[in-house]
C-alpha cells in the first residue's frame, strides 16, 4: 500500500512546507500520513518515512514510540478516548471508562474483536470545563455520562455516526489522520459543524445578559505607533 507514487507525492508536499534542508520537520506529519493509510504506524510506514527523509528506520521508530497518538497496533475505525485525568475522573470519567471497557470487553489501547472500535483512556484533553469528556476520533462528547457514552458506542457499532457535542461530524480515524498530517477539511460544511460548547461561552452570556462590555481605549486606527527612545 505504502509504496505508491501518490503517497510519495503527498510526503513531498509535507516536506515542502518546511525550510530547505529541514525536511526532518516533516516526520511527525508523515507519521500521521502513515496512519491515514494503514491505521497505525506499520513497519512499511516506518520504512517509508526513513526512505523519504533519508534517516534510519531506528530513528523513525524512536520518534514514533515517543508519542501517544502514534499507534503500534492496528486500530479500529473509531478511537474512543475517555479522559481520566483528575478533573474528569472526579466528575465521573473513570466510571465512564470502566463501563465502556466492560461493555466493549477491551482494555486500554485495545481494539474490539470486530476491529471496529479502539478504546483508550486519555490524559487531560484541555476541556476540563466540560468534564467529564470523551472523544471519538478526537471530536468531543462533553459532560458525558455512562449512559450517553454507551449510546454513542452502540450507535457506532450500528454503523451510525452520532453527532459530537463539540467538533465536526465524525469520519474514520484514517480520514482524521490525514487532517493531522496537515490536509484541510474537505467535507462541505464540516468546518461550521456544531457549537463550541456552552461552557466556553458562559462568561460571555453572563456579560451580555447584564450589558457588560470591556472598556475601550483611545482608538487611533490609522497613525503609526511611536515610542520615545529612552
Amino acid at each position, binding site marked *: 500500500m505504502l509504496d505508491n507514487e501518490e503517497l510519495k507525492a503527498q510526503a513531498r508536499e509535507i516536506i515542502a*512546507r518546511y*525550510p530547505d534542508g*529541514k525536511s*526532518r*520537520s*516533516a516526520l*511527525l*506529519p508523515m507519521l*500521521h500520513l502513515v496512519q491515514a493509510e494503514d491505521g497505525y504506524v506499520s513497519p512499511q510506514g516506518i520504512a517509508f518515512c526513513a526512505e523519504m527523509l533519508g534517516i534510519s528506520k531506528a530513528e523513525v521508530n524512536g*520518534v514514533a514510540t*515517543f508519542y*501517544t*497518538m*502514534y499507534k503500534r497496533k492496528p486500530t479500529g475505525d473509531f478511537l474512543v*478516548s475517555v479522559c*481520566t*485525568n*483528575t478533573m474528569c475522573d*472526579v466528575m465521573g470519567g473513570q466510571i465512564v471508562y470502566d463501563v465502556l471497557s466492560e461493555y466493549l470487553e477491551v482494555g486500554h489501547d485495545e481494539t474490539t474483536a470486530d476491529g471496529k472500535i479502539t478504546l483508550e483512556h486519555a490524559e*487531560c484533553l*484541555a476541556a*476540563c*470545563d*466540560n*468534564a467529564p469528556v470523551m*472523544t471519538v476520533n*478526537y*471530536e468531543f462528547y462533553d459532560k458525558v455520562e455512562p449512559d450517553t457514552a454507551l449510546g454513542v458506542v452502540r450507535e457506532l457499532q450500528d454503523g451510525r455516526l452520532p453527532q459530537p457535542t*463539540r*467538533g*465536526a461530524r465524525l469520519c474514520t480515524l484514517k480520514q*482524521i489522520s490525514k*487532517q*493531522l498530517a*496537515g490536509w*484541510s*477539511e474537505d467535507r462541505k460544511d*464540516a*468546518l461550521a459543524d456544531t457549537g*463550541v460548547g*456552552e*461552557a*466556553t461561552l*458562559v*462568561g*460571555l*452570556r*453572563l*456579560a*451580555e445578559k447584564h450589558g*457588560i*462590555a*470591556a*472598556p475601550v*481605549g483611545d482608538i487611533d*486606527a*490609522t497613525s503609526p*505607533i*511611536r*515610542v520615545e527612545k529612552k
Partner: protein
Amino acid sequence: MTSPRPEVLAKLTPVLTKRWLSPDAWRIDTYEQLDGYVALRKALKSDPDDLIAFMKDSGHRGRGGAGFPVGMKWAFIPQNDGKPHYLVVNADEGEPGTCKDLPLMMNDPHALIEGMIIATYAIRAKRAFIYIRGEAIHAARRLRSAVEEAYAKGYLGKNILGSGHDLDIVVHSGAGAYICGEETALLDSLEGYRGQPRLRPPFPATHGVYGAPTVINNVGSIASVPHIVLNGADWWKSLGSENSAGTMIYSLSGRVQNPGQYECGMGITLRELIELAGGMLPGHNLKFWTPGGSSTPMLTAEHLDVPLDFDGVAKAGSMLGTTATMIFSDRDCPVYATYRWLQFYTHESCGKCTPCREGNYWMVRTYRRILSGKGTPADLDTLLDTCDNLLGRSFCGLGDGATSSVTSSLQYFKQDYLDYIEGHRRPLLNEADLVGAH
C-alpha cells in the same frame, strides 16, 4: 442559585473572548467586520523597534504559565544578524485544568493570525509555526482554514498589504505528548525528534528552531497583541493590576454551578469567580483548588480572597500559571487528586533525567500504598524527600511541577493522608492495585 452582585459582574472584561458569541467570527469576513486586521494596518505603518518598545510599555506578560514579559522576549532577538528568524506559537495546551487556548483558536483564529503577523513584523521573521497539540483537531481544522483565508486576502504571503513584510505560517499538529508544551521540547518535536527539553543556555532567542533566533509565545500572548496595538498600552495596563497588565481568561472547572471561561481583569479573586459561576454546586463546600493548573501548588478556602495576578498568587505560595482554576470540594480527596496527577506526570515524563523519571514512578507507588490503606507515616517523609530531589534538580519544569500538588497537599491536608494511614478512612484503592508497589 443566586445572581452575582453587580460589582462582581462588572469584573467581567471580555477582550480576547469578545467575538466568541458571533457564530461566524472564525470566518475572515466576519472577523473583518469586527475590527479584524485593523491593528495590523496600524502596526505595519510603524517602525518594528517602536512596536517592540510599545509592547514593553504595555506590561504585557506571557500567558503560557511563566509570565515572561512579551516585549522583552521580542527584544532579545538579535537584529541584522543575517540569520532567518522564527516565531513559534505554543498551542500545545496540555497542562491539566487548562482550556483557554483551544476555544480561542476555535472561535477567533484570525486574532491569533493577526497577532502573529504583527509579531513577526516586529522581530523580522518571515516564517512562523503554530505547534498545536494533535488531539485538538477541532481547533486545528478552523486554524488551517483561517490561514488559507488569510493567504487568499493578502494578509499572508509576500509583501503583506504592500508593506514589504512577508510571512508564511504552517500549522503543525503534534502527536500527543504534554512535554512538547515545554518550549525547548517543542522545538525538538517541531524539528522531527522525540520531544525532549534542551539544555539552556543557549536560549531560543539566539538558538531556537533550526538553531536560529526564535520567539516562542503562547496563543493568548499573541492573540492579545492586536487588541493592545489598537487600544493602547495604557489601556491594557488599566485593565489589570500592578505588574499584571490586561485581562486573563480564567478557566473554571469542577464543583461550581457553571464551569467555563470567564475573562476578567487580572487580580480578580476566586471568591468573585465562584460568584460569577453561580456558586458552588449544592452540597459542595470548597476544599482545595489550583490557581493555574496541576503544576501550581493547590490552595484552600483560606485563599479565596487572594488576587489572582502574578504577584498575588506568588505571595500566597503558589503560581498564577495558566489561570486554570480547578475547584474541588469537601467531597473530593486531595490525596487521590494528587495521585491521579502524579500518574499523569509519570506518563508524560520524557525520561531524560533521573529525578523526574524515577521520582514520579516511585511517588505513584507510594500513593497507591497510602490509598490502599497500607501506608505508614514514614511514607509521608519519603514523599517529601522525593520532592526535594525533584524540585530544582529536574532538567525541566515538568519535574518541578510534579511536586507542587504533593508538597501543597501535605502542607494543607496532612490529616487526609493520616486518615488513610491510621485506618480512619476507607481505602480508595484495593489490594490488586498494589501489585508491584513494594
